[in-house]
C-alpha cells in the first residue's frame, strides 16, 4: 500500500528484509503461521480458503517446527480444539469461510468468556446461508459485534494485501495473548485467492513449556510444585460473580479500544471527500480515487485496519469539515453504521456496495461518489 501502516500511538508495523515471493493470501497465512512459532492449526476445508490447510499439508510443519496440523471433523470441533490448545497457553488457530465461521460462533463466545487467546481467520464469501463461494464482506456485523452469545468482543484485523495476510498472523497472536482475548483476521475471497509479492516474517521458534508457563501463568499447562489448579471455564452460576467477570471484560475492552486502534490514510491531506473502506474494498477504492483525482475530484481514503476496536474518533476527526464521506463495502451497508455513529450527523455519510458475491468495480465507486455526494 502507498502509506505506512499507522498505529494510534504512531508506531509502525515493520517488515523484515527477506526474500520476496509470490503467493496467494491464503498461502501467506499458512506460511506466516509456521514462521511465527504457532503450535497448532485445526481446520475444516471450505472455499475460498482451503489453500490454508492445503499449504500446511504440503509444507508439513510437524516435521520441522513440530507444529500440529489437523483436519477436524467439523468447524465446531476445530474451534473447540483451538479452545483446548489455547487453554494450555499454546498458539493455536483455525480458519474457515463465512458459513463455517457461523458454526464456530459458540466456541468463539466460550473463548471470549474463558479469556483464551485463540486466533481464527474468516476468508469471507457471500451469504446468507450457504450462499456463494464468491467474495463478500457481509460478516462485518458478526465479526465486530461478537457473533456468539453474551457481551463480548473479539479483536478484528482486516488485511488489504497478501503482505498483510502474512503480517497479521503474528500480530493477531500478539494481541490475543496480550489481552487474553480471541483475535480474528477478517479477510475475503479476493485477498485470499489473489497472488501478490510478499515478504514472509522471519522464523521465530515455538515457545518452550517453561516460556509458556512464564507468559501464561493462568494456563492449564500441568500442575507442578503444588501450585493451585488453574481452571479454564466460561461458566459461573452466581450472578454476582458473573457480573464481576463481565465488568472485568468490559474494562479490558475499554483498554483495547484505547491502545489498539489501527488504520491507514491515503491522499487525505487535500481531500474534500473521504472514502472509508476496509480489506479488498479499500484496494478497489484506491483505484477509484486514482480515477476520481484524474477527473479533478479531491478524494482520499480512510482504511480501518482494526474493525474492532473501530477507529471512530480518527474517522470523525478526519471527516470534520469535509464535504462528505462515502463508505464502500461489499455488503448491504454494515460498517456505514459505525461510520455514522462516529460522525454523528456532522457530515453527510453515504453507502455504496454490491451483494451476494459481486465485487464492485472501481468505476462504480466513482459513480457512487458523484451521484450520492456531489
Amino acid at each position, binding site marked *: 500500500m502507498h502509506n505506512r501502516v499507522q498505529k494510534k500511538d504512531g508506531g509502525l508495523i515493520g517488515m523484515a528484509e527477506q526474500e520476496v515471493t*509470490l503467493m496467494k493470501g491464503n498461502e501467506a497465512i499458512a506460511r506466516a503461521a509456521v514462521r511465527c512459532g504457532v503450535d497448532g492449526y485445526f481446520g475444516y476445508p471450505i472455499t475460498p480458503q482451503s489453500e490454508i490447510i492445503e499449504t500446511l499439508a504440503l509444507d508439513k510443519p510437524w516435521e520441522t517446527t513440530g507444529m500440529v496440523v489437523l483436519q477436524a471433523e467439523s468447524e465446531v470441533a476445530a474451534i473447540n480444539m483451538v479452545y483446548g490448545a489455547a487453554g494450555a497457553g499454546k498458539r493455536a488457530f483455525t480458519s474457515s469461510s463465512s458459513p463455517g465461521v457461523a458454526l464456530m460462533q459458540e466456541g468463539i463466545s466460550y473463548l471470549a468468556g474463558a479469556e483464551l487467546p485463540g486466533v481464527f481467520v474468516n476468508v469471507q464469501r457471500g451469504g446468507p446461508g450457504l450462499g456463494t463461494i464468491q467474495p463478500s464482506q457481509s460478516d462485518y456485523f458478526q465479526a465486530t459485534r461478537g457473533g456468539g452469545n453474551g457481551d463480548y468482543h473479539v479483536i478484528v484485523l482486516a488485511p488489504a494485501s497478501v503482505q498483510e495476510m502474512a503480517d497479521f498472523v503474528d500480530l493477531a497472536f500478539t494481541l490475543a495473548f496480550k489481552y487474553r482475548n480471541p483475535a480474528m483476521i477478517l479477510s475475503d475471497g479476493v485477498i485470499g485467492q489473489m497472488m501478490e509479492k510478499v515478504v514472509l516474517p522471519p522464523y521465530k521458534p515455538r515457545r518452550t513449556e517453561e516460556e509458556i508457563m512464564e507468559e501464561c501463568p493462568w494456563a492449564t499447562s500441568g500442575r507442578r510444585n503444588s501450585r493451585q489448579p488453574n481452571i479454564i471455564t466460561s461458566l459461573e452460576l452466581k450472578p454476582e460473580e458473573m457480573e464481576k467477570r463481565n465488568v472485568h471484560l468490559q474494562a479490558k475492552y475499554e483498554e483495547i479500544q484505547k491502545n489498539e486502534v489501527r488504520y491507514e490514510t491515503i491522499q487525505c491531506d487535500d481531500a474534500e471527500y473521504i472514502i472509508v473502506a476496509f480489506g479488498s474494498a479499500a484496494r478497489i477504492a484506491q483505484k477509484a480515487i486514482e480515477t476520481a483525482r484524474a477527473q479533478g475530484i479531491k478524494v482520499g481514503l480512510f482504511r480501518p485496519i482494526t474493525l474492532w476496536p473501530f477507529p471512530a474518533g480518527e474517522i470523525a476527526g478526519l471527516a470534520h469539515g469535509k464535504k462528505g464521506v462515502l463508505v464502500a463495502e461489499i455488503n448491504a451497508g454494515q460498517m456505514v453504521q459505525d461510520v455514522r455513529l462516529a460522525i454523528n450527523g456532522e457530515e453527510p455519510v453515504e453507502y455504496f456496495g454490491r451483494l451476494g458475491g459481486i465485487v464492485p468495480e*472501481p468505476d462504480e465507486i466513482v459513480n457512487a461518489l458523484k451521484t450520492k455526494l456531489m
Partner: protein
Amino acid sequence: MKKEIIISGFGGQGVLSMGKILAYSGLMEGKEVTWMPAYGPEQRGGTANVTVIVSDDKISSPILSQYDVAIVLNQPSLDKFESKIKPGGILIYDGFGIINPPTRGDISVYRVDAMDKAAEMKNAKVFNMIVLGAFLSVCPIISYEGMEKALFKTLPERHHGLIPLNMEALRVGGETILRMK
C-alpha cells in the same frame, strides 16, 4: 509502466497458468504484480479468467473496470471483454472457434492462431506459450530472457528439459501474430 491485463478462455486452456508465468516473470524483473483469478466453479469446462497487473509502482486494485490488454481465447470471452478494453488498448484473440470477430475500431486488434500452430508443432501443451509469445511481441513488458529466467525459477528441476520447447513456442507466437486493425 503499468499494464492491466485480462486473460480469458475455456477452463483447461491454461489461462491461470499463463497469468502465473507472466506474474512470476514480472516479479523476477523486480516489478509489482497482482494475479487475481476468477475462482468460481465455472473453471471446469466453462470460462476461466485471470487479471494480471504488472507495474513499476505499487498496485491499487486487483479488480478493474477496464483493461489495457485483453487476451481472449474463445467467443464468450471476446463477447465479455471486448467492450472493457481502454480506448487505444490491445485485443489479442485466437481465431479458433471465433464466429463473431471483434468490431471495435478504437483499439489495436491482433489475431494469433495458436491452436493451429500448437497442432503444427504437435504439442497442444505449448498453446498458451504461443499466446504469451504473441502478447510479448506487441507489448514487450517482459523480455524473453526474463521469461526464461522465470521458467527456470518456477518450474521444478525435472521439467527444466522442457524450457527450450517453451521458449521456441514463445518465438513462434511472436512470428504468428497478425495485426487485424
